[in-house]
């Protein structure tokens, strides 16, 4: 028997498409809390919240990947709190949480490199379920520490956009 990796995914929606992350990364799902903005952060870093005693950043994946640049935040906005490989706790804003799926990670379609707003390096692959496509995100790549350091610090105008909003 080959080593088939059956993983459970939590699927959610960003815009019209369905995305998935491995369930073992997910710590909790919460409604959009009161977020304290960080002065010099870029527009997809909404700020920080208190997550079980830890100061955790909130990242809007919709803004991050240009799916929706004018998102609304209300009591129906969902945050998925994930724990990365290096034990950082981070909240991800998504449109809605859909379902759980069992996925064999060995049987994924590779993500096509076509200059999509989500670069292939952030994806684990694509999964086909009936006629639906689920895009499986590589959360450790997206939230990579160095990458966050580099990308989350934005020019002044981007930061002012966040705080003035």
């Amino acid at each position, binding site marked *: 028997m080959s080593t088939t990796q059956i993983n459970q995914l939590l699927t959610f929606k960003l815009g019209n498409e369905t995305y998935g992350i491995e369930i073992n990364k997910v710590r909790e799902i919460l409604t959009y809390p009161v977020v304290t903005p960080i002065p010099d952060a870029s527009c997809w*870093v909404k700020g*920080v919240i208190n997550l079980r005693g*830890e*100061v955790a950043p909130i990242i809007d994946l919709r803004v991050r990947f240009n799916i929706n640049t004018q998102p609304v935040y209300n009591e129906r906005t969902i945050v998925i709190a994930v724990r990365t490989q290096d034990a950082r706790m*981070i909240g991800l804003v998504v449109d809605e949480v859909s379902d759980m799926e069992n996925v064999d990670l060995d049987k994924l379609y590779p993500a096509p490199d076509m200059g999509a707003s989500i670069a292939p390096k952030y994806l684990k692959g694509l999964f086909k379920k009936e006629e639906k496509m689920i895009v499986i995100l590589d959360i450790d790549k997206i939230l990579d520490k160095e990458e966050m350091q580099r990308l*989350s610090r934005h020019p002044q105008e981007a930061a002012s956009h966040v705080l*003035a909003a």
Partner: protein
Amino acid sequence: MAVFDINKYRQMFLEEAEDIFEIIDNILLEAEDAGDMDNETINSLFRSVHTLKGNSASVELSKFAALAHELEFFMDKLRNGKLLFEESMASLLIDGVDTLKHILELELSDELEHDYFMTIKEELLYKLDNFSQDIKEIELLNEEFSVEESKVIEVEKEDEFLVKEIEEVSAFGMLFPRESNAYGPMNGGIMDLGEDEGFGFFDELELLDDEGFGFFHELESVDNKEFDEGFGFFDDTEIINDEGFGFFDELELVDDEGFGFFDEPSNIEYKKVQAPLREAKKEIEVKDNEAKDGKKFKVDNASNSIRVDLSKIDALMNNIGELVIAHSMLTQYTFMMQDQKIKSELSERLDLLDRYIRELQESVMGVRMIPMETVFSKFPKVIRDTAKKLNKKIDFRHYGDSVEIDKAMIEGLTDPLTHIVRNAMDHGIESIDRRKAVGKNETGTLIMSAEQANGQMIIKIQDDGGGINLARVTEKAIQNGILDESQAAQMSKDDKAMLIFAPGLSTAEAVTDISGRGVGMDVVMSNIKKLGGVVKVETEEGMGSTFTIVLPLTLAILDGLNIRVGEEHFILPLSAIIETLKPEEDMIKQIGDEESEVLMLRNEFIPVVRLHTTFNITPENHKLSDGLLIVVRSGAKKIALFVDEFMNQQQFVVKPLDKNFRNAQGIGGATVRGDGTIGLIIDTMNITQNTTRRAS
């Protein structure tokens, strides 16, 4: 199945070894000063080394254990009077202990070559043997002494009871009688002792148990008084002898080393029994008194404490923080309740809960606090070594040992303190000749003190040396381009003294291996700042210098002022605030464009930082005179922060921002507010860096 992880136990051993080394160092230093060592000190020295040996062997540090064994063997001779203490021995032993530390480091990092170890061991043995030979005569005398019981009794006239006991003990020891009548009386006498110390056993037992030694069986056998011949005598003797510790010590000796009394039965010395007996008697008295008081006799300082990882305490603090937030949410919920009766009853209970949570919080904070003694006790050794190298005489005194400090702070504090101390010894305190020439006592004095005042920790390091040569410091600073002549001319004496904290500045002509490279004092400054503290220096030429370090009491909790900037709220650490004011229009001056405003306050010009601009927030007030200014300390400088409003003052639990995210400019950390949201804490140091960069 769990894998036995030796490293985990080694870590435990290391932590313990560090403490033990400190104890040993201090004992030896004292002995070196006094030129003498009493029995009790020798005993505790022996025990310390013995513990090191036993524990290191259990974590498979065999070479270290072997070396420790040699030292222990030597100390054992001291302890049982085969060697008499000499002044030079202390120095030898200090070196020996240093060697031991060195070997420990090497063995832990797996870099210890067998040959190298053997050389070191031979060297040490050679030195130790020198002593042993010198004192052979004494040894001989002792041996004579030991077989003549009558002599012992002569010496021990002072107390008949003891004499009797010695007789019994020695008779027992000599004859090894197994009949119950010969055994009985002595047994009875001992049993009391044994019972007195009953808890002592358990403490020790627990300790030993923790570390993986199993002496349970032996303990039981003592309890039941079922001795096998050899054991019985020695066990009991040692109970007397070592005031309760010895029992295990000796037992262990017998057990794992086989060295000591059994190997040399002819060396059973009555002198050995006799002196400790006196102590034992004292002990019994002490214990009787304490028993009356219903107090537990303190066997060892360490026996009542446990080692806990700081992260566990932090986790506990976090949980309490969560509890506080959950509580405040509940409280908020009660405001919405309609039923007045239930509402008031609920609030009453919530108040009670609030009190308990506070108490819990205080106790946990208390756990983090440890006495300053822990910090001070590292210094006698450092000072001795440095003084030796520099050929200076230093009298070190410390005050405020019992003042408590946050454990988390100690690590960050030790380095800067060591640096200041070394500097004071190298540059501050003059050479013996020089001191004589200026009419000072040839021994320099170095005083360290700690006190708590106004919710801050104040640590002072004071020397009676030559003080800082301000003219030279200023000259050097001008040379290095830190300031220009006109600036220097305006500087006060204290400001000039502060120049020693500038990077790359050393006035020492010769670079020694102790100090003088000009790296150091700036590191001291930055380290202290990291702890949220400040360093000041006062100096009087020819009279000495005083370094004052002011620290917050704890790293975890901070007193802060809530401020509002536009729609956003920030927290400003109270320790940074100098004064707050509502500026008049004529107090604000501009240099060049609108970006560079200064506040003219009394005789100072203080740069203004508009927090709206720094943090990109839509301002509520544009004119400075409509808002408020807070003059804060930013390193050595002052800046005035422009804000819209001051809110309340509060205590905050500081949490790092970069644990899950990254640091932000001008932000030093975060905290969880009462309503569960995050508040950002302003770092005044960081803000200036931002403005200077913008200006340049």
